[in-house]
Every structure is written in structure tokens, then in C-alpha cells.
């Protein structure tokens, strides 16, 4: 392996020292062997604050090699602060190829979205997780939640979902929607919109989750059952949008609301920027694509609503 010594002279490859990588690698293997179980690990200080994805960064640093192609997304976007800085970090400390194209990446580090483009076998999705414990807001004591997982005692979670129904008439949880992995562990899929939950089920890609501040790693192997919790009379449903993406016209994708002016003007666009750009290159156009968008700066557009 030839590395330019001048590039990363002061750091080991991928920033972490080898003993730390071994410790994280052992945790990853246990996580894969016990799908959905949160493996404790000795999370390190990283050159970024907790909450900026230190868990995901440590997982990526422990698995990445010179042959990998890395994609980093933040709420679906490749071009926002968190994504840009983590991508630059790995370019600097590991000298790896980076991409924004989902299909070309071997490792995709994500904060709270799963790309719209279907993942394939051989790809690894690394989630940055803030609170790994799905029961934490129901039971603050770690000793108790650990016991609840040990005894498979998840009644409290169903009570929580039931209270949603009693209060709102439907399950009001829209992100970090709890899932059951392989019929055993209830897991927090990280604060992804519940829209993405079905993509985790039987995904051909390996999914790794890293929570740096909370010091937990967990995993979902490929082709593993991931079922969103629900009730027979209130089945799990994903968000639906009554409008396509304003720029690329895509249906059945997750949309972000973008405020356009101070008169209440807004539009809905794909949250997955790579997906949206690809579609526009292919010639798909939404109602605000191209010139329409420029003209809009002077007009107040009609109401376009999103319904849950």
C-alpha cells in the first residue's frame, strides 16, 4: 500500500489507533451476531463534538480501507455541513475516494435517512445514532432497560404507541419509530423518518449503528427481518405526500419542505439530493424546475400540502 507520508503524517490511517479499531471491530462482530442488541463499546473522543456523528465516524473509521468509496449524507443531502465535514475528514485522514452517488459507494454514512436508490449487497450503511435505547424515554434507568431487553419485556413500548392512538387517534410517532429485529430485540432505527423503516426490512446491505456519546454499537445484518411495531387495527403506515417533488417530479419519495419567501410560499423537494439530481439529469422535471423556479421569486405559489 503506498500512502503519501506527508498527507497523514501525524495520524494513523483513518484517525483511530489500531487498538481502538480492534475494540470497535469486535463490537461490530458481536452486533452482527446479535441483531438489534446494543453492544457497549469504549467510545473515544473524536475531533468533533458528541452529537455530530462521533459514533458513526468511529464505526466508519474502523471498517474503511483504501479500496472503499465513501458517501456521507445528512438528512438525505450530500451538501450540508455535517456531511461535507465528515466527508472531508475521511478524505484527509484516510485518503479514500468519496462520492455523492449512492450506487457507487461501498460505505454510506448517514444521519437520519436511507437513500432512495435501492442498496445492494456489499454496501454498508453506517448510521449516526444520538439515543440508541428505544426505551430510554419510557424508562430512564439503564439497569432497568437492560433487564427489559433481557426479558423481552416490551409492553411499555406498546403502551406508548397505544397512548398515541388514545390521544391522537393514530400512532403519532413519525421518526425514530421502534422496530423489532428478527422477532427478538426492539431497536431504535435512529431518528430516520418512519418512511424509511420498510427499507431496513430484508435489505441486501449491512446496516451498522454507532452512538458515540451513549457508547453503543448495534447492527442489522443483510436479509434480516425488521418489523415496525403496530397494532392489528392500527397497522404501521408510512408518510405519504399528495404532491410530487417540485424539482424532479418524483413520487413515493421522502420530501422536505423548503420555505421560499416571507409570504408563506414553500415547496416540497426530495430530501435525497443525489436521487433528485439524477432524476433531473435524466430529464424529469417537477412544476418548479428550471425557469419556473426563477419566476417564482416574484410570485406567491399556491398551497401545496403534506399530509401524514
Amino acid at each position: 500500500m503506498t500512502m503519501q507520508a506527508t498527507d497523514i503524517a501525524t495520524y494513523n490511517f483513518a484517525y483511530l489507533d489500531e487498538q481502538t479499531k480492534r475494540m470497535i471491530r469486535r463490537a461490530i462482530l458481536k452486533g452482527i451476531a446479535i441483531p438489534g442488541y446494543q453492544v457497549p463499546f469504549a467510545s473515544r473522543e473524536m475531533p468533533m463534538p458528541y452529537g455530530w456523528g462521533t459514533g458513526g465516524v468511529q464505526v466508519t473509521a474502523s471498517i474503511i480501507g483504501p479500496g472503499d468509496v465513501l458517501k456521507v449524507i445528512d438528512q438525505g443531502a450530500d451538501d450540508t455541513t455535517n456531511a461535507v465535514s465528515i466527508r472531508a475528514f475521511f478524505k484527509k485522514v484516510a485518503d479514500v475516494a468519496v462520492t455523492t452517488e449512492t450506487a457507487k459507494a461501498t460505505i454510506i454514512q448517514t444521519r437520519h435517512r436511507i437513500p432512495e436508490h435501492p442498496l445492494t449487497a456489499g454496501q454498508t450503511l453506517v448510521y449516526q445514532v444520538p439515543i440508541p435505547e428505544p426505551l430510554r424515554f419510557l424508562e430512564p434507568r439503564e439497569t432497568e432497560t437492560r433487564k427489559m431487553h433481557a426479558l423481552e419485556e416490551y409492553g411499555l413500548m406498546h403502551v406508548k404507541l397505544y397512548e398515541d392512538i388514545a390521544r391522537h387517534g393514530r400512532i403519532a410517532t413519525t421518526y425514530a419509530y421502534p422496530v423489532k429485529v428478527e422477532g427478538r430485540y426492539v431497536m431504535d432505527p435512529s431518528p430516520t423518518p418512519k418512511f424509511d423503516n420498510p427499507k431496513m426490512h430484508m435489505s441486501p446491505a449491512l446496516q451498522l449503528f454507532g452512538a458515540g456519546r451513549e457508547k453503543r454499537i448495534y447492527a442489522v445484518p443483510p436479509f434480516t427481518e425488521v418489523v415496525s411495531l403496530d397494532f392489528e387495527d392500527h397497522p404501521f403506515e408510512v408518510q405519504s405526500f399528495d404532491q410530487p417533488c417540485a424539482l424532479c417530479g418524483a413520487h413515493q419519495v421522502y420530501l422536505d419542505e423548503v420555505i421560499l419567501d416571507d409570504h408563506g410560499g414553500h415547496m416540497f423537494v426530495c430530501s435525497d439530493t443525489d436521487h433528485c439530481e439524477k432524476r433531473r439529469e435524466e430529464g424529469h422535471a417537477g412544476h418548479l424546475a428550471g425557469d419556473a423556479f426563477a419566476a417564482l421569486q416574484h410570485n406567491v405559489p399556491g398551497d401545496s400540502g403534506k399530509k401524514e
Partner: protein
Amino acid sequence: MVEAETIDGGFANPVFDAQSVFRAVMDAMARPGTVQPVAMLARPPAPLSPVAAAVALTLCDNDTPLWLDPSLQASPAAKSWLGFHTGAPLAGTPSDAHFALVSKPAELIALENFAQGTQEYPDRSTTLILQLDSLASGADLLLEGPGIEKMAMAAPTPLPRHFVEQWKQNRSRFPRGVDVILAAPEGVACLPRTTRIKTMEA
């Protein structure tokens, strides 16, 4: 006195060699039954095999008590090589081991002797590294479970005695239980505790 063979034969390029071996093991663990090739990166003294030794170098260090089967235990060369290159302390009893290196799987003690983890901390279990002759010339095993789309096939040999029955018991202890890394000359394959094994009824 330190012999040359103790010091020789580690990873030539520790960072990248460990990374490539780990990715092979990770992919094998994530896709049970698949054989992930491992380059001949380690040159350990017999009876250690190069692939099993590479896995040990990748995963073991001074945090991980290592259990050796009697034939490795009887080899001062293998013991001092592992000690020099990994720094792993030897586990006196199998239930204290984080990893177990097994050079003669056919003579292995029962899987239930190894650390199984607890119901609260099922990750505190032993991972066994078995040195095999082949991953393709044994009796066919049908594998099902997470990581496998429908069904996978493996034919590792030699396996511990009554392995299919032992594995069924291991599976029934879930989430507790041991995980197995099969190291053969052609590469590694893994059996995480979630994998269900069926024998081919001919």
C-alpha cells in the same frame, strides 16, 4: 531466549492487513455460509494455520483472554508467537475466554464450556476460531437465518463432534451463545449464533 520464529511472520503492514482481514470476517459474519477469501498475510509456526493466525492478529489484543486447544497449548512456538504478536493473555478456563483458537476442531470440548454471555450482556461470550481443512469438502449443511436471503450452503470439515446437535442447543440459548469463525486455507466463513443449521437428508 526469544526465537526468530516468534518474531517473524506477523502482518507486514499491520494497519491495512488487519483492515482487509477484518472486512473479510465482517462480511462472512454478515453473510453466514459465504466464503470470504483471506490473503496469506501471516506466517505463523505450526500448528497454527496462516488464516486462523491472521484472524487472531486482527481481533485479539491485551484486552481479550485467549483460550488455546490442547494441541496449541502444547506448542511453545505457537504460544510465544501469539503472545508476541497479539499480547493476548491466555485464558485458564474456556469460560473466561473472549476468543478460542482451535487447531483440532474434531477434538474440541463441548461448546457449552465456553463463555455464553448473560441475558443482559449476551455479547460477553467466546468467539471460536476453528482451523479447518476445507470449507467445501465436508458434509453439506443448509444454513438459514439473518444474513441469508433464502438458504445458504456450507460444507466445512472437520467439525467438532455432534456439531449440528451442539449448534441447535447453542441456537436455543439465543441471545446467549457462541459465534464461530471457520478459518480454512481458502478463506473464512462464519456461523453467528443466529444461524440455523439443517443437515442434508439424502
